[in-house]
């Protein structure tokens, strides 16, 4: 047991037998505060290992050092579910030879489990661990709450290295990932910067446009026929989505509706709803703020789930398939309701699906909430520049000027019209936006394929080209 504890990251890498051409993995619960990926990559580069495949559940701007490792061919292939704009821009400019493979939060564990993207060495940043590798995100100075996305890495990688800055006596009480999967444990000074791991508070928007969208979103939910006892719900951490959660809470309390669960990335607003009795449980794959971290530590109804249980199509069942309503964002949506969350208005990579297409596929009502235009660019286009989530999985678009229902969901369209909501054709919404902004000129895409978007079932649904 004590044999697992090694002195340094470098020693652990050597013991794990990392060689040229292998695959390594990281999880992203420490978000933009993560130190672990950079620490590990620095050691790998120093050891002279080359041509690795990097499989990371998400990559943030704090991982900008990767650019150097890509240029030096330490990393020659990236699999990820999300990439923020710093590295995304460089990838779009043609930094890598091999296209980046984007998956979803459900597709990643599926492909790891099925051996499509095998992992040789997984690195697990653990806010607390014991010397045998039992670990948890709930405790310690770098506490991040759930470790959901790290489960497939721990379970299926050939070698698993736990890196912690809070080593405690064996056995850790309340572990999430058990020792049975762990080969080596390393103690470091800090696995991350708590300031960047979770925001102190996630805030409701004060923008009147966002508040109107949030109120409309809740009207759509209320009149969808789904808001009744047993209701289940997911929303992102965007300002308007949080405002919608807050309005929804008021409606549920007024009408005395007792929901079943809320899932996904969990914020303090969902914790408030749990504590107010709106839901029986929270199903948490990732904590977004300190209130969520505190809640998952203290409240047994706030439950940690693995990436597989969250969204994997290879799991025998998953939480997303039990969702009634999900509220999602979009950088673009086209008149066929296809949604882009991968690239910005100039075609640069600035995001990724995360759980977007998983929840859209699973939920009975998938709602996109977005302003009619952002910085002069209409949100509705003829064709999105990248399909992240296919339009067949989207039921309704909510904007500040009106609501467009996917014609495939006639029942919802009738319900919303009967309720007096301003239901418009999506073409009409596009025209309203273009009257205000002008008609945008077309972008010409580059020659080179820089990324591919792999849907949760393993099929490539789109490619992203250089800018």
């Amino acid at each position, binding site marked *: 047991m004590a044999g697992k504890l090694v002195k340094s990251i470098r020693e652990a890498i050597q013991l794990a037998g990392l060689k040229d051409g292998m695959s390594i993995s990281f999880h992203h619960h420490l978000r933009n505060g993560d130190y672990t990926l950079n620490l590990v990559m620095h050691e790998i580069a120093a050891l002279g290992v080359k041509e690795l495949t990097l499989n990371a559940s998400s990559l943030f701007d704090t991982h900008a050092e990767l650019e150097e490792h890509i240029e030096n061919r330490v990393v020659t292939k990236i699999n990820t579910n999300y990439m923020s704009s710093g590295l995304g821009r460089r990838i779009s400019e043609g930094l890598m030879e091999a296209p980046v493979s984007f998956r979803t939060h459900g597709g990643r564990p599926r492909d790891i489990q099925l051996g499509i993207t095998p992992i040789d060495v997984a690195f697990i940043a653990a806010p607390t661990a014991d010397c045998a590798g039992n670990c948890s995100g709930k405790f310690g100075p770098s506490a991040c709450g759930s470790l959901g996305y790290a489960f497939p890495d721990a379970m299926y990688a050939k070698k698993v290295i736990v890196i912690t800055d809070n080593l405690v006596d064996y056995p850790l009480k309340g572990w999430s990932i058990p020792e049975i999967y762990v080969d080596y444990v390393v103690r470091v000074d800090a696995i991350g910067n708590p300031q960047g791991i979770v925001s102190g508070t996630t805030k409701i928007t004060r923008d009147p446009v966002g508040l109107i969208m949030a109120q409309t979103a809740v009207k759509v939910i209320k009149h969808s026929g789904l808001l009744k006892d047993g209701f289940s719900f997911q929303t992102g951490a965007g300002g308007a989505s949080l405002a919608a959660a807050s309005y929804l809470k008021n409606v549920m309390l007024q009408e005395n509706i007792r929901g079943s669960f809320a899932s996904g990335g969990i914020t303090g607003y969902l914790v408030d709803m749990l504590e107010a009795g709106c839901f029986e449980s929270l199903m948490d794959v990732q904590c977004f703020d300190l209130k969520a971290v505190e809640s998952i530590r203290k409240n047994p109804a706030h439950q940690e789930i693995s990436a597989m249980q969250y969204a994997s199509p290879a799991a025998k069942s998953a939480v997303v398939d039990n969702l009634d309503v999900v509220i999602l964002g979009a950088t673009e949506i086209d008149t066929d309701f296809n949604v882009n969350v991968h690239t910005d*208005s100039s075609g640069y990579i600035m995001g990724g699906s995360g759980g977007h297409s998983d929840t859209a596929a699973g939920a009975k009502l998938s709602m996109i909430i977005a302003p009619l235009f*952002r*910085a002069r*660019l209409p949100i509705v286009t003829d064709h999105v520049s990248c399909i992240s989530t296919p339009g067949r999985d989207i039921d309704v678009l909510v904007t500040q000027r009106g609501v467009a229902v996917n014609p495939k969901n006639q029942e919802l369209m009738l319900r919303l019209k009967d309720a007096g909501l301003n239901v418009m054709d999506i073409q009409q919404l596009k025209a309203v936006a273009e009257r205000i902004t002008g008609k945008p000129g077309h*972008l010409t895409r580059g020659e080179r394929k820089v990324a591919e978007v792999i849907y949760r079932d393993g099929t490539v649904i789109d490619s992203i080209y250089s800018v």
Partner: protein
Amino acid sequence: MKKIIRSATAGTLESSDALVTVAPHENGVVIEVDSVVQKQFGEEIFRAVEETLRALEVKDARVSVVDRGALDCVIRARVETAVLRGEEDA
């Protein structure tokens, strides 16, 4: 005819706004546009600045627009304000 005698600005660098700067210049109008929506609206922005200057009878000026996705009406208003702040009898 309006004469620009001093450097003046209007607007901000907030999203959906533009920062417009006018400055004295000899021999005609020079317009520079730097926009986050250059590819989609670069020409429209240039034309909005040109038309606003013509309407205000500004014949000689250097005008720079740093655009953060402002609507056409905002661009025109910011240009007009910058001209009024920079002109002779202001």
